[in-house]
């Protein structure tokens, strides 16, 4: 699904990712952890194709396709989704309208037929219900004035509607209350179908308890310095990142 080799990414001329390797197979869920500033969000942005995130070395292949050659919208249509750590407020753009425009733009790019508004509303309503969100949020401007938790849940609603092949979820659990965390986890698990893959960026074990990741990676200073199974995240929870420095030394 996703093959990252020796990825170097510079932001504003400053190298942030310094030789990152990561392979995510179909149906797998990988957890990505690591201290603040280690480059987790940078990886997400680089995958999504944000301006100014320059790949200076290495490669990223998504289903065999070189991501660097695609515009952000082409990556989305190819099946890549990024749930933002800080979802962006878009004043004046109606949430439901935006979601439908996004879905139809992707479908059009893939040569599929557009969905009519009835079918669309049905799909959205289901996701909204799963996440126990207020339907009124659909009529509001995208993320504008949403609470922190509402924004995060709105990202998962978008994921559920857009049905990506690979979703990168950047700290979607941060700022969620305990019930919401569970709902988001259910939202993610509901989309696990043996083919769809996930990279879940998180600082906490709590979300991973619900998700049971296939692999856990630790990113530090732009590189993956440790990979393992679930025991790794438990160890991080107990000991923090200190042991990494010891093993690096």
């Amino acid at each position: 699904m996703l093959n990252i080799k020796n990825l170097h990414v510079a932001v504003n001329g400053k190298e942030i990712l310094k030789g990152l390797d990561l392979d995510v197979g179909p149906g797998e869920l990988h957890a990505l952890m690591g201290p603040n500033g280690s480059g987790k969000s940078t990886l997400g942005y680089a995958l999504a194709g944000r301006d100014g995130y320059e790949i200076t070395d290495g490669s990223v292949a998504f289903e065999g396709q070189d991501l660097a050659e695609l515009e952000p919208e082409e990556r989305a249509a190819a099946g890549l989704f990024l749930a933002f750590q800080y979802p962006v407020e878009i004043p004046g753009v109606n949430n439901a309208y935006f979601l439908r425009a996004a879905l139809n733009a992707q479908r059009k790019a893939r040569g599929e037929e557009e969905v009519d508004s009835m079918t669309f509303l049905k799909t959205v309503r289901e996701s909204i219900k799963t996440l126990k969100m207020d339907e009124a949020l659909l009529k509001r401007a995208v993320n504008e004035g949403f609470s922190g938790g509402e924004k995060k849940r709105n990202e998962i609603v978008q994921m559920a509607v857009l049905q990506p092949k690979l979703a990168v979820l950047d700290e979607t659990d941060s700022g969620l209350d305990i019930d919401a965390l569970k709902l988001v986890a259910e939202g993610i698990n509901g989309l696990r179908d043996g083919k769809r893959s996930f990279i879940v960026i998180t600082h906490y074990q709590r979300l991973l308890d619900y998700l049971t990741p296939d692999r856990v990676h630790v990113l530090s200073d732009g590189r993956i310095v440790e990979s393992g199974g679930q025991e790794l995240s438990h160890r991080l929870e107990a000991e923090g990142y200190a042991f990494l420095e010891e093993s690096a030394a």
Partner: protein
Amino acid sequence: MSALIDSLATEARLPADDHAEVRRRAHKALLKHGFPDLKTEAWKYTSLRVLEKRAFSDQRPGLSSLPELPFAATVLHFDNGILDATDLNLPAGVSLQPQTDEKLAAVDHGDRAGAFGWLNLARFEQAWQLRIEGQQEQPLVLAISTAEDFHGDVHPRLAIELAAGATAQIIEVHEDRGEGLVNIVQDIALERGANLHHLVSRHSAQSAWIQRSEAKVARDADYRFHALDRGGRLTRHDLAVTLTESGAQAEIDGTVLVNDRQHVDFHTAIEHEVGHTNSRESFRILADGSGVGVFNGRIHIHRGADDSHSDLNTANLLLSESARINAKPELEIYAEEVTASHGATIGQLDDQALFYLRTRGIPADQASALLKQGFAAAPFENIESESIRNWLIGELGQLL
């Protein structure tokens, strides 16, 4: 500035009718003050050069087309600026009459900055008085349109009076296809407790479109104004609202779109003459191409107008390097126990928001159109009538 006097305001061009006295007085005032130039403070961003180069023809142009509107309305068509008042089917409570000379003789358009007002008074074809009583459910549409072969100058003059307690919606739809001068003067009065929603949707081609709307708002009356200006070669709108008695209130919302070589200048003024009066204003300009957008929003809270409140906000989007925006709030406060907040920003499309939309699969062009549309539509979100709101927002969508 005599070029404009020569082309527009020679004595020979004063219509010979029974308003001679009124016209002569206006003509004298115009000659005395002259037309504004870039040294005239209120006109410093808007040059009349385009106008100076034109010759105005008296030839009657072809019939201009009526706009199609997606809501039921009583339509007054000002064909090439002139209303044909025969066979008007006005609803009960609405009447239209010529203005009296007594009223016209009392008009004061001030100095040079009001030159076009004087020109209108000297040259108007008809001066109408529209009086509205009771609750008018259906909007009244003033459709002012020009045909492609319109090369003349036309000076519509209209007084609008709302009787005490009356409610009405007046929607002006201005569609220009010509290359002349349309010079409108409106004199609006809201008697006690009246409620007027005044909307202007304008799109001008090559004509200079100059409009002066003055509204006086009495006790507990409510004046609401919405403008959607979709650009023009030279458009200038002066809107002056005076809150004359306590409980009077004004709300102004507007969006201006300019592109190519368009130039639109909005000057608004809200006068809080007495205490316990409220106003709110929000104005947006989106300037693309080599377009120029000007907004000057003046709030004047007079001495003794205590316990008055006003809020003025202008947010603007500069969409190209050669576009220009001059947006300025101007507050003068001489009263006590007053709140007056104001803000002005000029920015560009938000990169983060663009990126966010694109990561959802929306192509760059469509994403920026969505953002512009969202930004431009904000001042119309508070329009209660869904059909009118959607109509205005739809007009926006065609351009962005």
